[in-house]
């Protein structure tokens, strides 16, 4: 079988590697190339201008700098909140229930809850955008939250949440969390299923409450999954675009209060005819994502527990 092993392997790899090179690596390389030019995007002529686009990136305090700031906020808040909620719900649905006749199980109706929480995952992001735009709308225009707040006598932003500089970014993040948490609930649930029940039983016998069970047994054993979730969510955070595009005033407003890097790339590429500048920002985003993943994987490592 040794004979002809490499041709055999290569014949399997050729197609996927070829596709990957053509659809991913070549466009990446071209993005680097374009970012060094003054290409507008609507002609096939351009000049090389060195790193001027990169230098100008960090002078743009109208779009780019706010976008970087907002994306950084999302990058911190989205993974923390989503993972915390995902872990909490997964724990409650799998382990957190009252122990009946010594069996470890979730709270009552956990199967039902799992489906409910997972539901947003089934919806396309466009539908989520339209749905929440309506939920956040001003009171007189069918806004659910504003209407509910007023109904119980609490103050609500007069123009809805998305037209208010103070709330718009938080509102977008809330939708991101809402739509992601179901997936991580299921993700963590399946990881929890691989934790042997006798560990919990031993813990309970020793008098551990839910709180201790979670922090002393569940979390350490799920560390790998949490790390993976963190990287996924970070990538989602860096790529936030559609919700901002669909929901917010002037696609990043009001007054730039919800600009994100993805949206600014789109604005430069298609609204302002500055593909090269957009590419430069894309390249910066690429390196941000790359270093983030490297950092998360290298420094997030903990000692593995042998089970």
């Amino acid at each position, binding site marked *: 079988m040794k004979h002809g092993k490499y041709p055999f392997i290569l014949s399997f790899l050729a197609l996927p590697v070829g596709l990957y090179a053509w659809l991913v690596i070549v466009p990446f390389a071209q993005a680097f190339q*374009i*970012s060094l030019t003054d290409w507008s995007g*609507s002609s*096939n002529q351009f000049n090389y201008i060195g790193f001027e686009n990169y230098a100008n990136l960090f002078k743009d305090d109208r779009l780019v700098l706010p976008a970087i700031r907002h994306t950084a906020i999302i990058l911190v808040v989205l993974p923390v909140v989503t993972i915390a909620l995902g872990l909490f719900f997964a724990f409650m649905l799998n382990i957190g229930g009252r122990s009946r006749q010594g069996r470890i199980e979730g709270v009552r109706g956990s199967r039902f809850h799992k489906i409910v929480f997972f539901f947003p995952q089934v919806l396309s992001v466009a539908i989520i955008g339209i749905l929440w735009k309506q939920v956040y*709308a001003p009171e007189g225009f069918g806004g659910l939250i504003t209407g509910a707040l007023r109904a119980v006598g609490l103050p609500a932003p007069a123009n809805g949440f998305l037209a208010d500089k103070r709330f718009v970014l938080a509102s977008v993040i809330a939708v991101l969390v809402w739509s992601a948490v179901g997936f991580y609930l299921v993700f963590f649930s399946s990881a929890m299923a691989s934790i042997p029940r006798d560990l919990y039983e031993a813990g309970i016998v020793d008098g551990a409450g839910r709180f201790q069970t979670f922090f002393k047994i569940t979390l350490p054993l799920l560390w790998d999954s949490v790390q993976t979730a963190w990287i996924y969510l970070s990538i989602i955070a860096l790529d936030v675009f559609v919700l901002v595009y669909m929901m917010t005033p002037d696609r990043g407003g009001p007054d730039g209060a919800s600009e994100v890097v993805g949206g600014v790339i789109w604005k430069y590429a298609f609204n302002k005819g500055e593909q090269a500048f957009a590419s430069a920002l894309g390249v910066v985003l690429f390196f941000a994502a790359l270093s983030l993943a490297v950092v998360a994987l290298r420094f997030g490592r903990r000692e593995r527990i042998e089970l």
Partner: protein
Amino acid sequence: MRKPNTKPHFSRRRLLGTTAAGLAASSLAACATSGSDDDSEDVSVGEDVENPFGVDGSLPLDVVIFDGGFGDEYAVQHQEMYKNAFPDATVEHLATQAIAETQQTRFSQGEPCDVLDNSGAQQIPMDVLVGDGELAELTPLLDAPSYDDPEVTVRDTLRDGVLTAGTFNGKVYALNYVFSAWTIWYDAALFEEKGWTPPTTWDEMLALCPTIQAEGMAPWTYAGKHPVYLYDMFLMLAGQHGGVDVLKAIDHLEADAWRHDSVVAAAEAMYGLWEAGYILDGTPGIDHIESQTAFNDHKAAFIPVGSWLPNEQKGIAPEGFQYAPMAVPHLEGAVQPGLISAGGEEPFVVPQNAKNKPGAYEYLRIMLSKEGSQIFGDTVQAATVVKGVELDNLAAQLTDELVSDPANLFQPRFRFWYSTMDEEVRPGLGSLMAGESTPEEFIERMQTVADETAADDSIEKFTHDA
């Protein structure tokens, strides 16, 4: 039991894949830089008055229409006219709102369509297309004999001043086909029923507001999520008060142009609407559809929109609703109260690398014929840039009265000339009308960005013709 250490590898790969999505904007277009650049022949005007551009009737024609407020029904009928003239030709018709997303790559590949209606929020910036040499000059079209009368050139069939918006450095690159005005709209039927007179001055309007509120309506609403709808209203208010030169000074980025008394007065008047509570609750948080629906539902009496409003509302307009335009009510002491933001809109362009340029010119000539122009008028109830088209609806007749004096037509251009200014004036007006910034803050904000733009040598400067 030890879990195999596969996850990190998987995530790294996944990472590359997803970041690709983040870069999609650049990567999509990236494949395109290699496109060929075969310059097609320039079109000249021949002797044949029936076919002045020498169209080869066997070539297909590729037309892209912006599917916005005017829809694309008129274009379909124009294409019928073209097919009748050239029975062998096939016409490729695309109606879309995503102009830049669908057409930009075709430009960079050197394979653009033949006729492009480069309009809407996603238009490809005109200055970029012109600067890149991607557009064909339309002089041959304008010099050609008109469709109906070989003795008259196409240029002479057009209304005054409609070519200005498509002229760059003295050359016409875009035919702004629709004659359109930014006006304030009200329901004429409702006003008649209540006995209200459409106000001509700002003070009359303010005096009417309490009466309107007494009927349970708000006086004003607008597309708060797209504050660009306030741009012309605000600038006309300033221009009426101080004369058109005030607006030209702003367009020319002159020092202290924004601090002019008339501009300050306009900002204070707009802010005053919010202060007095004359704006429908929640307006800053609604888009053009919601605001127009609120207007249709008689939740608000006035709304600033362009001439396309009646056509856009066709099909959803309430029974008996009569869309009527009026000029922006002018401030006390206005020196040019008739000033109105009107001119050509919907820029039709012919790409320099179009495969069937003669066909494209001929298509535009057909659009500018009496019949073609009447088709547009009949289907969308709005005027084209062609003189003498009969329109039998109230909105179009009232608009015609408003724009009757060519000396009073002016389109503020700084938003189109300088994207830096555009990016400040939209959120600036939004904040002003939402009561989030004071008139002084708004004026200073605009003056600052105007000064910065003027001082930036890397930005190409434009001027109005003297």
